[in-house]
């Protein structure tokens, strides 16, 4: 009799095991061909959209912090002239300006903080917004306080030399970028990007006049041919070469079928050849074009804005690797090549377009040597 208590239990176990086996077999043997005949319940035409990326690309950075450092280099700064206030400046073709200050910058660099947060992210529309901050500190040695002739402002007051200003204040850039991705259909898309920049030798507790805010914009029409290739063309209003400029934009993103090789090109802002070492690390070789117009408060008189047109090309190698989860590290090394460090005096702080053919005089003509640079960063990325 004692054993009889086990009979219901064994029967239950038996039926459960039969049921489980049957369920597994049903799942394993499901006839998937029947799903060929499934169609949309709601027959409203479905609009499909191009995805905002292609396979194999480096992960998009949502939040990043990095430290950028340039090795020592020598600089030559011209006299400080005031084309608007005093009517004297350097001709656009000036090749041999009077050098008023020479020195060596022992180190240049600082922290960079970047964000690119999705505000709206749907198949039919993506809006990303980000605040970016870049601090550039200069450690100037040799002659930061002894230019050949004192810096005299149009009102007769003496001012610090540019070397001394850089050494004591550094340069800062605060940026707000909004990017909008509009897929038109499964292949075509439009990207629009707008940026506001506040750049200068300001301190964080004493901003410079908001009339010096610069705006940049870019619009690109593109075609996503397949999961491995897309291209686009467009135009941009940019300060990447220091001066205000209008340039064409070319997008060319491609990944090989084995996902090992690829390109990430948004010319002229950046162009990389990519090698995917594994799913969790990659190597980029190419260049960035960086620049902004930096307001120098001390030289800005009579309601004008005196601005350093800083533009640099950075050929580099970049290694990115996953640390854990969605945290990736990046290490960059390359050359910081001086494109422009000249200065303009902007009447009433209103910018002008010199382009290739303008004849507006420069306030300063400056030259920097090209040192090595390094950049290390941590990023919270999109998978």
């Amino acid at each position, binding site marked *: 009799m004692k054993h009889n208590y086990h009979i219901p239990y064994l029967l239950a176990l038996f039926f459960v095991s039969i049921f489980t086996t049957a369920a597994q077999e049903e799942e394993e043997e499901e006839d998937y061909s029947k*799903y060929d005949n499934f169609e949309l319940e709601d027959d409203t035409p479905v609009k499909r959209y191009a995805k905002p990326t292609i396979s194999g690309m480096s992960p998009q950075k949502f939040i990043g912090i990095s430290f950028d450092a340039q090795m020592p280099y020598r600089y030559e700064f011209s006299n400080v002239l005031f084309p608007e206030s005093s009517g004297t400046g350097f001709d656009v073709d000036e090749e041999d300006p009077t050098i008023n200050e020479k020195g060596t910058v022992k180190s240049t660099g600082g922290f960079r903080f970047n964000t690119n947060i999705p505000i709206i992210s749907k198949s039919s529309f993506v809006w990303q917004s980000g605040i970016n901050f870049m601090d550039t500190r200069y450690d100037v040695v040799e002659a930061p306080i002894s230019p050949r002739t004192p810096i005299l402002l149009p009102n007769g007051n003496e001012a610090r030399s540019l070397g001394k200003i850089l050494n004591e204040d550094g340069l800062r850039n605060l940026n707000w970028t909004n990017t909008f991705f509009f897929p038109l259909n499964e292949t075509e898309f439009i990207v629009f990007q707008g940026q506001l920049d506040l750049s200068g030798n300001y301190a964080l507790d004493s901003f410079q006049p908001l009339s010096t805010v610069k705006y940049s914009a870019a619009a690109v029409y593109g075609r996503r041919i397949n999961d491995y290739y897309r291209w686009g063309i467009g135009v941009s209003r940019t300060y990447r070469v220091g001066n205000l400029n209008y340039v064409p934009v070319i997008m060319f993103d491609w990944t090989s079928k084995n996902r090992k090789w690829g390109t990430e090109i948004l010319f002229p802002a950046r162009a990389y050849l990519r090698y995917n070492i594994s799913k969790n690390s990659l190597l980029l070789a190419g260049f960035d074009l960086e620049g902004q117009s930096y307001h120098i408060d001390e030289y800005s008189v009579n309601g004008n804005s005196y601005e350093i047109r800083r533009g640099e090309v950075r050929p580099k190698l970049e290694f990115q690797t996953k640390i854990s989860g969605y945290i990736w590290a990046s290490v960059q090394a390359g050359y910081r090549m001086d494109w422009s460090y000249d200065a303009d005096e902007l009447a009433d702080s209103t910018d002008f377009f010199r382009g290739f053919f303008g004849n507006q005089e420069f306030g300063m003509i400056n030259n920097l040597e090209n040192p090595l640079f390094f950049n290390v960063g941590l990023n919270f990325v999109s998978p």
Partner: protein
Amino acid sequence: MKNKIFLIAFCLMGYFAFAQEADDIVGVWEPGHGKAKVKIDKIDDKYYGKIVWLKEAKDPETGEPKVDKNNPDESMQNVPLRGYRILKDFVYQGDGVWEEGTIYDPENGTTYSCVINMKDENAMEIRGYVGVKTFGRSDTWRRLTMKKK
């Protein structure tokens, strides 16, 4: 006594209505890209979705049925994508919202946190995200039914 019966009946009706709403998600759905069909089932008290159809069923490189080759777990890289469970562990929260689940993207081998919102009886918004819902992306899936012969 009548009041008690009425209260119990009311609670039961509420429970069944909730359960019925929760099962609204069950069925076959098409993601926005239209390259797959996903069947959502209820298993115990949770909801799961598996790929039951692929527009491109075979890997053009190998000619074989597509497998989960991007899975970070090497032991899973030969598992066929058809039949693969990409939605897991969803729990109905009420008001047409299913949460606490995950969605797997076979294109990059990544699993995301996920929330599903029923927009109407034939469309739902599905959002995969990382950490917080801000860092995510939404897609609209539409209900499929068997063709009428």
